[in-house]
């Protein structure tokens, strides 16, 4: 293509492109691939039997179950929110529309640690709602509700950010045609909108799942890290790593790494569809 035209133009040899490509490969191998491969190498360093033993440790199994529970609750809520936000912002004009878009992006730029502190200052014992919650015997912090809320905060933009630009680019003609032909709201959505956005929606949901499963900073502030109770998988990894059970930590980490690699494969598959 144009690339060949450029590189074969007079006065410029092929040496520079080759050098840049080689440099890109070497840097990526050291910087990105090595840490990825190292996780599996360390996880299996003491053989399969130890690996299985590490994964089936009761505390690790509990952490896996808790992490899965958090994802199962948070991801559908964020899918619903992402679709609602995309529908409102892409299909209607209203004052404050751009401001709303910026607000949805806030969790991307705020450190998860700060998100955790925000929630603690709202629902914690010293927080604004703390006395009221204590009077009604409700426990949000250092319990499942706190973990769910913080995870929702950090993953809120994922689905909306994938679906919104696509809906804007597609325009609303098809949906308007369906309405004029007499379709009702949910019919328009399930027959016209949903098929059009399904791949972006799937990709957003996969990203949201990966992030929900891997969230560390925010959850470590609000969970209280109670062994076997509020320890999610990333917190369990930290616990084992600090207990100098490095092989156990890497075994637990390898499960999250597999999820990350599934995300990459899904992304590549969806991009070739577009």
């Amino acid at each position: 293509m144009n690339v060949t035209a450029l590189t074969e133009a007079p006065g410029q040899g092929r040496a520079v492109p080759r050098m840049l490509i080689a440099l890109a490969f070497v840097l990526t191998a050291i910087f990105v691939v090595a840490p990825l491969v190292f996780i599996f190498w360390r996880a299996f360093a003491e053989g399969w039997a130890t690996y299985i033993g590490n994964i089936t440790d009761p505390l690790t199994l509990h952490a896996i179950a808790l992490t899965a529970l958090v994802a199962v609750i948070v991801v559908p809520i964020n899918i619903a929110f992402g679709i609602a936000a995309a529908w409102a912002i892409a299909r209607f004009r209203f004052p404050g529309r751009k401001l709303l878009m910026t607000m949805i992006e806030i969790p991307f730029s705020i450190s998860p640690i700060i998100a955790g502190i925000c929630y603690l200052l709202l629902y914690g014992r010293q927080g604004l709602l703390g006395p009221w919650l204590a009077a009604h015997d409700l426990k949000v912090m250092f319990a499942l509700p706190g973990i769910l809320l913080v995870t929702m905060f950090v993953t809120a933009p994922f689905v909306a950010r994938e679906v919104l630009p696509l809906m804007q680019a597609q325009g609303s003609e098809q949906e308007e045609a369906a309405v004029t032909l007499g379709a009702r709201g949910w019919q328009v959505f399930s027959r016209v909108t949903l098929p059009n956005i399904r791949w972006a929606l799937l990709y957003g949901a996969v990203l949201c799942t990966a992030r929900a499963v891997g969230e560390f900073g925010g959850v470590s502030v609000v969970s209280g890290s109670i062994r076997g109770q509020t320890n999610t998988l990333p917190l369990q990894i930290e616990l084992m790593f600090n207990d100098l059970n490095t092989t156990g930590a890497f075994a637990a980490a390898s499960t999250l790494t597999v999820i990350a690699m599934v995300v990459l494969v899904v992304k590549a598959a969806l991009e070739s569809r577009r």
Partner: protein
Amino acid sequence: MTAAAPIRAKRVLPGFSLSLGTTLLYVALIILIPVIALILKGAQIGPSQFWSIVTSPRTLSALRVTVTAAALATLFNAFYGLLMAWVLTRYDFPGKRILDALMDVPFALPTAVAGISLTALYSANGWFGAPLSGTGVEIVYTLAGVTLAMAFTSTPFVVRAIQPVLEDLDPTLEQAAMTLGARPFAIFRRVVLPAILPAWLAGSTVAFARSLGEFGAVVFIAGNLPFKTEIAALLAYIRLEEYDYQGAAAIALVLLGFALILLILSNWLQFRAARHLEARP
């Protein structure tokens, strides 16, 4: 110019109040009210108390470590990201799609997993740590380690910001410059750089913001030595564990301020980058 008119004109489609109501409720409950809680808590501290927390030697040192390491990490990614974006958009070679997919690893990999992997990899008996310790270079428990962890987690931002702009940039401009006798570096500086600059800066700004707030990858490799490798996010966390809610809130507010300023800056730069793309037919 009434605000209501364009809404009514668009109201062929149903579901406006339902979708907007859901969105506003969720944004308020999950994003806005918690952030406002932090700001209210910060307002209770009082200016002199706030100032003394923020300018205490330990806080200042943590902020210095955070900003220095984040700046170094961003500098690395600005050049590594530019190289990757250039190679991925301009050349065809075997393994290109894999290289492209690998750029997303830091997004997909949980930060705590990245943190323990980098720590073990660069520790004295790790693959990279062992040969490095022979030369006297220490990564783990130093500023270099903090920088490395921040650089890893923020890598994709620069690449993914420049890629679409480079793909869209018409190569005939470069060919025209070449036929006029310009040398490669001059072409890059005069033709390519002005086109990609807003996107390059926007990506670097987001990478910098992300590095300032990074926690999971950093805590493992930093060793968290006060006055040496302790980052601001960790100091806020430590203050919480000491039940010093004012101290935690004050440091968190400073980081929140940084994050919001960088968010506005990167949005403005992205807007400029988008306008540059739209200006082309």
